[in-house]
């Protein structure tokens, strides 16, 4: 029993029950506004009949429009404690995948902390595979898009980083590829540069042939 609807600014005043969870980041206002301005359809909230916010998903389309190569990305997915174990996260993922596919996204990917085993297992159940492990992705907490553009590089080899998982519609991943890498940037823009450098020979076509 849930009302699913578009997330609006006013929900920011009411999402504490979801966001006071230690694994859910509360971003700066610009971060939310950027998503609402650019990818409003990827930002969905679930509401209970009593009016409580149950959970939300926030995502975007990533990649290059010019090369017609883009995919969906899940930035945040969180469900309040008392509304867990209802399959709500799966439902929200389903909706985002549907939107991404409708928009011509090749696949959907997301980052998750290695330590967040509950989430890792859920994503695996939803058909996601570990693509590679990124280190220190969550090291900066502000989450503002162009925060600290003059970044200080702190190389670290700690293994408790973050893993990138992805799911390609209609394809069951048999091989799980895990790349260990140094990741230092704090914002996703820098990370994008890192994820898809030309040297990587990474292409959407190859992904399909995995």
């Amino acid at each position, binding site marked *: *029993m*849930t*009302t*699913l*609807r*578009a997330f*609006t*600014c*006013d929900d*920011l*005043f*009411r999402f*504490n029950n979801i*966001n*006071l*969870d*230690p*694994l859910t980041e*509360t*971003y*700066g*206002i*610009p971060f939310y*506004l*950027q998503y*609402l*301005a*650019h990818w*409003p*359809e990827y930002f*969905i909230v679930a*509401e*209970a*009949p*009593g009016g*409580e916010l149950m959970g939300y998903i926030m995502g975007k389309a990533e990649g290059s429009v010019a090369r017609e190569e883009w995919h969906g990305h899940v930035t945040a997915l969180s469900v309040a*404690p*008392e*509304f*867990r*174990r*209802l*399959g709500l996260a799966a439902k929200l993922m389903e*909706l985002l995948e*549907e*939107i991404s596919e*409708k*928009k011509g996204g090749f696949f959907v990917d997301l980052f998750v902390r290695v*330590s*967040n*085993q*509950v989430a890792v297992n859920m994503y695996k159940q939803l058909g996601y595979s570990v693509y590679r492990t990124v280190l220190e992705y969550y090291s900066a907490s502000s989450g503002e898009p162009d925060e600290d*553009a*003059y970044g200080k590089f702190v190389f670290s080899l700690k293994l408790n980083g973050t893993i990138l998982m992805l799911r390609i519609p209609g394809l069951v991943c048999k091989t799980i590829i895990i790349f260990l890498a140094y990741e230092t940037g704090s914002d996703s823009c820098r990370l994008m540069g890192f994820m898809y450098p030309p040297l990587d020979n990474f292409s959407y076509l190859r992904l399909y042939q995995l």
Partner: protein
Amino acid sequence: GEHRDYLDNGNNKMAIQQADKLLKKHKDLHCAKVLKAIGLQRTGKQDEAYALAQEVAALEPTDDNSLQALTILYREMHRPELVTKLYEAAVKKVPNSEEYHSHLFMAYARVGEYKKMQQAGMALYKIVPKNPYYFWSVMSLIMQSISAQDENLSKTMFLPLAERMVEKMVKEDKIEAEAEVELYYMILERLEKYKEALDVVRGKLGEKLTSELQSRENKCMAMYKKLHRWPECNALARRLLLKNSDDWQFYITYFDSVFQLIDESWTPPAEEEHSLEGEVHCSIEQAVNFIEERIAGESRSSRPLRGPFLAKLELIRRLRHRGCNDEYKLGDPEELMFQYFKKFGDKPCCFTDLKVFVDLLPPSQYTKFIQQLLDIIPLVAAAEDEVALPGDIKALQQHLCVVQLSRLLGIYHTMDKKQKLAVVRELMLRYRHGLEFGKSCLKTELQFSDYYCLLAVHLLLDLWLEGEEAAVWQCLTLLEEGLSHSPSNAQFKLLLIRIYCRLGAFEPVSELYSSLDAKHIQHDTIGYLLTRYASSLGHYAAASQSCNFALRFFHSNQKDTSEYIIQAYKYGAFEKIPEFIAFRNRLNSSLHFAQVRTERMLLDLLLENWEWAKRGLGEDISEEHRKLSLEEETLWLRIRSLTLRLVSGLPTLAHTIQPKNSEKTAENGVSSKIDTIRALLQQLEAAVDSGKKFLEQKIQYPVLGPPPTRMAGFFSNGSCQCQTSLFYLVSDIYELDTNGLGKCLGQGFSFFFSDLFNKCKGDLIEVRDGTLKTHPNLLENLVFFVETISIALWVSSYCDSVLRPFKSNLQKKKKKKKESSVAMPPVFTHFLDYVTELQTLTSNVIDHIKGLEIILTALKLEELSLKDTLLLQEEKKFTKTVQGKVQSSYHHSVQEIGELLKKRLDTIKKLKI
């Protein structure tokens, strides 16, 4: 080039040097000048930076580099309006530049110049006929209509114009993007042309609405509702429920429409389709069948759906409201809720779901209902007389649901103290037993049995409010214990924060709050927990810090939102633009923001080593409580901001003594300043009156409801009377020259002050019957005392500045006349007496505080025999921690207050003329 890199790397000095080098070679290199200006701005030389920038701007540059650099500079200067001037000049010189025109549009957007945006959009479209430019212009018309003061103007001019602009494109078949259709819909909706809006959505153009989920359906539904087209509402809701029988909003619409149709005696047409959206249900029988079908269908769903079952309860409620239930045999709500519990009782949300429908249960059945639920939970007792415990997480979850329902239905409410304590013990036993199931839980996860602990604490809070002093310590003990097992539980932390604050102990709160990792918007939504108590409990440093965090957030809001309004134009998210603006306004008009602003300034004045005297002369709250609290907060804010304005108005009262009967006072503008002070004083009196009237209602907020303001204390401890009389003194002293040197310095002050002091006396913590009793109100009174003494000093500084020149004036006269007959007016002696009294009083309070410190240090809480022998060893440990924290916090408060008072004492000593 190189200097730009320096700037990017934050090396502003090198950037300035590089720019200087370049400028030596090429004197008129605009861009270098601007880069230098950026360097200057960032090193704090705003004036030089501005001058240099204006030099370049005056030349009306048209090169990209200069324009971009100036834009960056103006943005850093928080002067976005200068960017518009820059590009206005640029497009004049290069009238065909698409780029400059679009920069100009965005510059207008940043400052909200809607009319100019409309023109800039059209100018752009004329140069490059791209659709987005045209629709930017249309959107700017909508913004003009939103911001228009005159609603008529908005409905008769701006919106119709916007509509015609879109219609033109429709006729020419030029509509390309989804965003353009959205915009069209927005215009029609705002014009209340719902029929037309519906036609757009359902027509060819509507096919473009694909991005959002069910975008077309949602828009149609909204229009059907506006048009009261219940058949369509019903048919569409029905269809959407067939697709997803768990979406609550459509059940609501479905029921609403069925009953509307019944009331209208609507009947379906014999031949044609029922409605545009297909089959319509217009009788109770159909609705009942429909819900039963959804329930039957649920069993075929891959995951259990709660919607159909709850919809049935909702239908029963609606039928009952209409006075017809039994005939439709939907079943007994009690039985249905029991069945629901059987199916979903092991889900944590079961309680939240059933909560909505408990009003369907007759109160006489509560106990029976609870027992019925309890009976089906598999609980096992180890021995005959022991508590039966759940064997797995599912059973535990079910039991928790029943316990929560018991609380909701008031089962515990009627119990006496002994029974309540027995329940607390049982809940804690269950809590500790339940920890077994969560042994593998990570630190970031909650324990399954946390709710037992929370409920035990709530029962104890009830006992505390009934006067059971020991209960509050047990609350804290249990919460600290709970937190040690479940370190991420935000409920535990928030409760601890509220209770510690109620006890007047702020020190532990900082750490708890920071472990919540609250930031950004949460400064507004929960930040008040800190700012309400930090300064009022004498934790001035913490108060400053939390105010600063909050203010930084609120101040960045303005700048941040503008940026994303522009992005929304770029990406065609038109419906988000008014939403962002409303959001910005909501944050700007936040009551919390206004309070923090006022309190921060008062705090600054209070903590400052002020020299200006000389320089200047040179959880579930009921709607009712929510409303009352808002009213109280607003009244209190009014009093505080008037106090702030009065205090900060003092240094503006530059007072030169005029000869007696001078007519000049009115011309030199000074009198207008005193008039302002007097007007403010009158407003303060009025605000105080309304505050007092409000408090006559003697509102008791629930303990976890909104925290009450400090207003009650302000009135009852005498600081209100003290402060207003002090401000009257300013007004009186001012009259000195015209009314003669009467008895300006009333005798009342020392009385008011000693009364205030009396309200501060007493021990902060005392041991009574083996339990600790705290008196946090003494702490709040002390803080008010410090504030009032400070105001007394500001006022005295002002008096001093008036009296001192006056005295020397008189003394000169005396010398000239060489007569002893010119007696010194008594005002000087009065003033001296008054200052001496202030000094004595302050010294006394400082001594009192020293005494408090000694007592607090000497208080050996470890020796406090924890009388409740029922306490477990584990609990005793936490009780000691808790009591230690409160003791340490009081110590901290008293120290900060004492330090501040000592500073004040030093200032008083300087005041004697």
